[in-house]
């Protein structure tokens, strides 16, 4: 899990029973996307230049959240 510093991720540790057959995966991660933390978009939000905006899927920098599988090592 290389995303410990990502502000858009949260973790929880599920209760582990004595008879759970699979080895524990560790903390379970879930996404809290930028739209949950920003509210109504304020004026003068920073923008990406056009080609970068297309590549990232958003014109507005603060809404960008790159996703990588947490299971990928």
């Amino acid at each position, binding site marked *: 899990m290389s995303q410990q510093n990502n502000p858009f991720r949260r973790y929880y540790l599920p209760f582990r029973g004595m008879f759970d057959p699979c080895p524990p995966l560790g903390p379970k991660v879930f996404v809290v996307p930028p739209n949950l933390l*920003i509210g109504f978009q304020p004026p003068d939000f920073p923008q990406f230049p056009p080609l970068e905006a*297309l590549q990232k*899927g958003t014109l507005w920098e603060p809404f960008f959240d790159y*996703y990588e*599988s947490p299971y990928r090592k």
Partner: protein
Amino acid sequence: MWSYEKKLMYPVKVSTCNPTLAKYLMEQYGGADGELAAALRYLNQRYTIPDKVIGVLNDIGTEEFAHLEMIATMIYKLTKDATPDQLRAAGLVEHYVSHDSALFYNNAAGVPFTATYIQAKGDPIADLYEDIAAEEKARATYQWIIDQSDDPDLNDGLRFLREREIIHAQRFKEAVMLITEDREQKKVF
């Protein structure tokens, strides 16, 4: 009406001939939280939403058709030159015996699309909250597909689509805020 442009919204690429990934992508083609459901949901709800936010539903609904075309392109490219043997190995034999390599509005488990995937309650808050939930579900679905895919070019296109769900959810939440404000109520009466 709509007017067609002979281009995709985003340059879709796939790097491998991998029909298994095509099967996963059908979740976003004909699935409950897929792009078809999204387009039909918003474009149908727009008739009974306050004027102030019709544009939000209209334009996001329109963008969903551009996303549907991107998903279709991914499926098309991943299955285009696949042999019947390869399709069988990918778990697509049930699809193949009915459709050959034609696309169809099924989810990843082969369940055909149904109008019950979408809602229209006629209550602006109920409908907009449904739309926000739909965007978050579609975002999660893109995450689970990316978790299952090792095709870097495909994942690039899927990341674009996932990011759009975040923007759409943002605009739907702003729409809720706009119709929740009571500042303009005096003007109506």
